[in-house]
């Protein structure tokens, strides 16, 4: 999945000019109303737990992820596991790996550690860089903005896989590989998040409370920390929730190209890569990591959607949609602006200025329709 895709998907859901969450409690309350998101959150929690408890779980099974069991595979037939369902038995809950006879359950749960860990760490790097660059280019002068925008253009225009191949070859061997993979993914894919943050910050900094903070005497850094960062948290969190699954697949792709995490450390991407050709001879070998990846991605994506909905100020009406009660599905549409809180009469009478549509140089920033949201504040029209 491309980062850009995520960015656009996220940007569509958040309107920075409206205060989003007003406290964690409200957020939880909203999240709680979405059954699907709650289930997803539980699945994610379970996955993280499994990853953390991998040594414990494999100890219960009595296996470890690296020991070979040559006797469990049919050497003359290319090393296909002996026994039904890829050698499932009391000792090997999910069977064994072809050729090596290593325990698949152990590899799967240890693989979760690497895949989730790498994806999370890469996401952190992306978020950190993206926020830094995005905020700096929104707050800096024209030159800073130009240079940083150009920088992210360059990042976007460079083929990610190729840079990853090159970078992973350069770094000295002693460097821990999972950390390296996370860093590389993070370093080359922060462009979209920077764009989102930049757009968001540009909108936020026009808000009156930021002006008020300036009048209070705070300097730029203090304003960024107090007034802006909390404001960009919502879209960033939402986006990050969608980035994690994307990063898992990038890790898998890097493994496919031979530059992922090194054996014998298992990762799902690596398992998928080596299992790919076993699709016919030992299908469960492919289906296990593929299934794990699928469940993880579904859970993270649904959770990401849930988080977005919960953080979206306008989601109040949509939440009902989320619960799937059919007769209410049209609520959001027909109701539109005439929510019971009675927006009528409270809009500023100052005529809307020329619509402030984001320039195409930040195409993922926000939809043109959202341009109307800043209307009502008198600008230089």
């Amino acid at each position, binding site marked *: 999945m491309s980062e850009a895709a995520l960015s656009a998907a996220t940007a569509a859901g958040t309107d920075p000019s409206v205060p989003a969450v007003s406290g964690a409690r409200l957020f939880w309350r909203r999240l709680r109303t979405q059954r699907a998101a709650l289930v997803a959150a539980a699945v994610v929690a379970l996955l993280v737990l499994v990853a953390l408890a991998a040594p414990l779980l494999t100890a219960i099974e009595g296996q470890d992820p690296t020991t070979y069991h040559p006797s469990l595979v049919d050497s003359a037939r290319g090393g296909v596991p002996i026994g039904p369902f890829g050698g499932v038995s009391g000792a090997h809950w999910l069977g064994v790996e072809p050729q090596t006879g290593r325990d698949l359950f152990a590899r799967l749960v240890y693989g979760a550690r690497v895949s989730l860990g790498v994806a999370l760490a890469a996401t952190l790097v992306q978020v950190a860089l993206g926020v830094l660059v995005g905020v700096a280019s929104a707050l800096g002068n024209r030159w800073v903005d130009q240079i940083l925008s150009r920088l992210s253009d360059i990042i976007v225009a460079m083929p990610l896989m190729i840079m990853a191949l090159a970078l992973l070859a350069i770094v000295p061997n002693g460097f821990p590989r999972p950390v390296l993979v996370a860093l590389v993914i993070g370093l080359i894919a922060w462009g979209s998040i920077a764009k989102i943050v930049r757009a968001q910050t540009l909108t936020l900094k026009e808000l009156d409370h930021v002006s008020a903070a300036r009048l209070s005497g705070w300097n730029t850094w203090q304003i960024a920390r107090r007034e802006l960062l909390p404001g960009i948290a919502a879209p960033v969190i939402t986006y990050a929730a969608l980035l994690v699954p994307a990063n898992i697949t990038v890790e898998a792709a890097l493994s496919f190209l031979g530059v992922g995490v090194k054996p*014998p450390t298992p990762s799902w991407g690596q398992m998928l890569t080596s299992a790919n050709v076993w699709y016919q001879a030992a299908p469960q070998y492919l289906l296990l990591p593929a299934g794990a990846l699928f469940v993880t991605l579904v859970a993270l994506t649904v959770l990401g959607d849930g988080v977005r909905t919960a953080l979206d100020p306008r989601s109040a009406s949509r939440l009902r949609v989320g619960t799937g009660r059919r007769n209410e599905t049209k609520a959001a549409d027909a109701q539109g602006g005439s929510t019971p809180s009675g927006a009528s009469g409270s809009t500023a009478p100052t005529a809307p200025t020329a619509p402030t549509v984001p320039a195409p140089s930040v195409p993922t920033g926000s939809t043109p329709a959202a341009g109307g949201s800043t209307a009502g504040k008198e600008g230089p029209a």
Partner: protein
Amino acid sequence: MRQPSVTRARVVTVSLAVAVAASATACGPKDSGAAGSGADATPHKGGTLTVLNANPQADFDPARLYTSGGGNVPSLVFRTLTTRNRENGAAGAKVVPDLATDTGRPNKDATVWTYTLKKGLKYEDGTAITSADIKYGIERSFAPELSGGAPYLRDWLVGAADYQGPYKDPKGLASIETPDSRTIVFHLNKPEGEFPYLATQTQTTPVPKSKDTGTKYEEHPVSSGPYKVVENDNDGEHLVLTRNTYWSSAVDSERKAYPDKIDVRSGLDSSVINQRLSASQGTDAAAVTTDTNLGPAELAKVTGDKELASRVGTGHFGYTNYLAFNPKVKPFDNPKVREAISYAIDRSSVINAAGGSSLAESATTFLPNQKSFGYNAYDLFPAGATGNAAKAKELLKEAGYPNGLTITLTHSNSKDFETSPEIATAVQDALKKAGITVKLQGLESNDYSDTVQNVKTEPGFFLAHWGADWPSGGPFLAPIFDGRQIVKDGANFNSGQLNDKSVNDEIDAINKLTDLDAAAQRWGALDKKIAGEALTVPLFHPVYKRLYGKDIKNVVISDWTGVLDISQVAVK
């Protein structure tokens, strides 16, 4: 660590191949020859043969090719002074005349070799092939623009070491004489009884000087063989070969040339090649591959299907995968440690990782297990199938490591299933029982080559493999164990840095022999003598399973190359 290859070694990092893929060549099964329906039916001329390959024929210049026995696709276009015998199994490991009337006439000490060309040899344009063209072909292989061939001509021919090819030095090499248009004489700087083997390489292909366009020659190489190149798209990705009407079976007894047309498609993923061959639909029914073999997963599927199993040929090729020690690095300076590891190794794990017993045969000798190499079935440090942990522990104790040993194994991150992480982790597991803890150091493949081939950076313990340039002990043992071939400022393959006068002398002595059978005996004996030093731990010799299409007939897989010889294949 050279890759014996049909094309010049291309490092293929991306490949779904699960097995020892690509560029290898191999040999038919020693006993029965190629199996399957293909061998039985009577072959007829005509039809189009499709070749599905992973690696494009990016180089099609005879000067740049590094081939064993003249290669496969190139040998359809390029005839050489001598060539491999186009027969199944061990018989295929013999050298036979090609352009020449015999395999070469040596002088008394084998330092001067004379060849006479057959009569009536013609290029695709009908002009006659002369000995001067062969001389020119060899000379141009020394041009830096056309680098890539094997090192032997450079090392053996008098005055070749500094020669930079005919473009810079039009006077040419004085050590190659062409007294008349059918005779060519080579003057070597030392006795080389195996010169006939070297003469199989494509550098001895005639190149007409008037047609030479330097680096662009490969776009239109002039054919001396049964086929000529009529189409070469995308730098060797798609080749179409049709009959060279000036070629005649009367002057070429080796190439059968049944199909009228050969269509070579490459750049394919190896699993796709095998899928296509097993589906065998449309033109794929008349398809073979010359660089792809069945991976373990594919083998598992094929063995369960009788129809498919009948379309698999088995090939062997002189090739050994082994663990190399650098005795300059502690603790491998201690022979007891090296012996302990030799005893400890559990080869079954390693063989499974390489694809299982059908795709890899356990190796206890450095030389390949073939007669032509002088195979001498010894096992100096018997480890059995699963390792002799007790003996290993005992030796380690003697060596001063009573509580076990921790060592680092260097391997590459390529996906070749030879020096790759899969084999390394299997070795890691295979030594565990003996109390030897192995740490892995994986290097990107270019980095790996640089590191292990440099005497200054060579690690103490690493995965290595060696393949035969021709089926004899000479090119197998000399680069690895001849002390005079230690290269200080370039690519070094004598990883044990062995410089033993008795070994060096024996190599020189064998090289003087022009009786190749007698030489083979002595190579085998030398191999066992060197093995006593425990500088390597042989792991396995690969076996190649080659799938081919339904309509393929006359399948010949020699022990020299291990692949289907497409000069023999028929589709009708």
